[in-house]
């Protein structure tokens, strides 16, 4: 069998084809997963693609590999390959409609696959939700560190502000709490007003970002790094000293509103908004400010406006992500938003790639899954992940997928025929 021809065959599968194939393989897992796992001698279905199993109980590994091949590998490969023609036609037809229709169909399929996949185990559900939140945080930090070229250490601070703002609002307004007293609004309204709560949380985080954004007019680089670091310490310390939100003990009892669908929708909104932002004129102005501030001014870029919008926009999404984080965990504690969080988020941004939406997604998903997969190694996990990152930094200093534009239309287009056919497709 000619390997190269086979690979070319797979390269003609559009995203729609992969999503349908993934969906079907998840259905297969739901239908026959448990009996198959039993037949292969596994105690239960491999929850996270067998990666946890591989380190914990290596003797079960062959079974897990066979399971993965039967449930995921073979069906996905077969369906994607054989259905490529139909999928390409369907993708082409969808692309003739407005772009949002095609995007909605793809996202709907993706969500359906994720929902069914995570429905099989609570652990999957939790990991998935945290991963999606990590994508939001990483992407928003990439706006400052990648697109704007500053070295900002303030992101855990923005997250903390968002997390606490959202928690206080939802706990105060919709639940009975020993400090905040009776619910001010009927709890039944809560899930519907939750988006509003998150938006307010994001706005509060954005306002707090002024503390970092305004000094950034006069200073850059290293001194701004210190200012942002000081900001992070100040926020953490401030929350530790605010008795009304529980101080260092933290604040619990957030309602359980951040299900997978909510987190997924917000992540999609975040990716969409940030991608549009960085591809807009203002986004290009961010790049200009990064590369040469004086030249940017000469080209009529309002650097102050650009910086402040960049910071506030990134902080807004970090705040929203913080709010979601608080409601997924249903407990927040100022200790969560310290140096450790900073190292984690920075690692995700620089691992994935600067100045790139793809990169942030790759970085956040990669580090999150790696963190879960290496959990059985206990503390050695914190030797392997840093080593990996050092290697990535040495061989790809700007990250795995840096400086790559994310064009939704190119992602969704059918993949049959040569590249130039993309131009032949109707636009709009």
């Amino acid at each position, binding site marked *: 069998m000619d390997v190269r021809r086979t690979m070319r065959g797979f390269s003609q599968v559009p995203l729609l084809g992969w999503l349908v194939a993934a969906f079907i393989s998840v259905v297969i897992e739901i239908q026959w997963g448990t009996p198959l796992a039993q037949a292969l001698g596994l105690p239960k279905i491999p929850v996270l693609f067998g990666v946890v199993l591989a380190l914990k109980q290596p003797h079960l590994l062959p079974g897990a590999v066979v399971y993965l091949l039967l449930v995921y590998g073979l069906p996905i490969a077969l369906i994607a390959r054989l259905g490529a023609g139909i999928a390409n036609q369907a993708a082409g037809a969808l692309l003739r409609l407005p772009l949002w229709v095609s995007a909605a169909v793809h996202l709907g399929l993706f969500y359906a696959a994720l929902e069914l996949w995570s429905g099989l185990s609570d652990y999957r559900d939790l990991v998935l939700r945290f991963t999606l939140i990590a994508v939001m945080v990483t992407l928003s930090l990439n706006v400052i560190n990648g697109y704007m070229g500053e070295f900002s250490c303030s992101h855990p601070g923005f997250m903390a502000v968002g997390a606490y703002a959202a928690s206080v609002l939802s706990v105060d307004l919709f639940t009975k709490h020993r400090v905040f007293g009776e619910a001010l609004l009927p709890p039944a309204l809560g899930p519907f007003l939750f988006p509003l709560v998150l938006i307010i949380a994001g706005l509060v985080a954005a306002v707090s970002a002024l503390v970092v954004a305004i000094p950034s007019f006069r200073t850059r680089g290293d*001194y701004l790094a210190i200012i942002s670091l000081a900001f992070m310490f*100040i926020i953490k310390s401030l929350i530790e000293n605010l008795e009304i939100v529980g101080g260092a003990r933290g604040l619990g009892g957030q309602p359980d509103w951040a299900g997978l669908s909510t987190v997924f929708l917000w992540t999609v909104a975040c990716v969409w908004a940030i991608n549009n932002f960085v591809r807009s004129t203002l986004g290009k102005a961010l790049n200009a400010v990064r590369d040469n501030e004086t030249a940017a001014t000469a080209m009529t870029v309002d650097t102050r406006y650009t910086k402040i919008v960049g910071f506030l926009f990134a902080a807004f999404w970090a705040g929203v992500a913080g709010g979601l984080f608080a409601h997924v965990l249903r407990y927040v504690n100022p200790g969560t938003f310290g140096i450790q969080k900073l190292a984690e988020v920075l690692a995700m941004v620089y691992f994935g790639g600067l100045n790139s939406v793809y990169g942030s997604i790759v970085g956040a998903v990669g580090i999150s899954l790696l963190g879960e997969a290496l959990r059985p190694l206990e503390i*050695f996990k914190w030797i392997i992940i*840093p080593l990996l990152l050092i290697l990535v930094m040495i061989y790809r200093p700007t990250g795995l997928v840096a400086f790559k534009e994310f064009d939704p239309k190119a992602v969704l287009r059918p993949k049959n025929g040569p590249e130039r056919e993309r131009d032949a497709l109707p636009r709009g």
Partner: protein
Amino acid sequence: MSLFLQNLVNALQWGSFYALIALGYSMVYSILMLFNFAHGDIFMVGAYIGVGVAAVLLAASAEGALALPPWAILVLTILLAMVLTSFVGMLVERIGYRPLRGAPRASAAITGLMIGIILETGNLALLGAQRIRFPSLIDTTVYEVAGVFITNTKIIIVVVALLLAAGMHFFVHKTKWGLAMRAMAFDYVAVPLMGVSVNGIAALTFALGSALAAAAGILYALAYPVLDPYMGIVFGWKAFVAAILGGRVSVMGATLAGFLLGFIEIFVAMIFPSTLRDLIAYSIVLLILIVRPHGFFGEPYSARLRL
């Protein structure tokens, strides 16, 4: 008044740690334009190496192989630990920074951060979670001067820190090596053309910075003998703030900023509840940077860098 003086003494001691660690940060930062985020953990490694060296020396003198008075053991511990830790520093430079010479600075900052995590976890994996006590090498004597209690450890700490800072100042300004370092901070590109080995100077910078961090680690262990693998994190980040606050110009700048940070922290804790220490201390740092955005001794966007 005596409360003020007492706190002044405490602040001097506390600032000594910051000053010594900030010196290492500042040297690497001035010469290579890098944030060495692993530096805080080198401070921790230095303290642990100090424990090892002290244990060996104590065992040797107990068996009669070495007849040394306690103060000599302390001096030897500090010196040996400084030498050993400087090798750790050079190793960190070789693995984490040299391959990234041409890469964006932020990437090198990330490798530093990751090496720091590896050092912490490596320590935890090697020695376990149990905390280690630094052996008490000298008996504490308390002197009372005008109602202020001063221990001999405090005197040792402050004097050694000042001596080391002065020695570093001398080294950087009066020796040929120091000249090469200043030249590299001044112009990164021209220095190799003058026949100076960039890698050699980089290794020397890391070695010196790590030696100072090791000294800080042992001095810290004299005052607070219980060590844990994560002790470097908070100190490292705070000394980093001090190093940048001092400005990228002089050994003195970093030293002074280190002491200043110590003073701010101690006096904030004297006036306000101690839980507010970080909050107020960092707010002051923020204000300083808003008023003087390039630190105390820094020059705005200047190509002219002096160490």
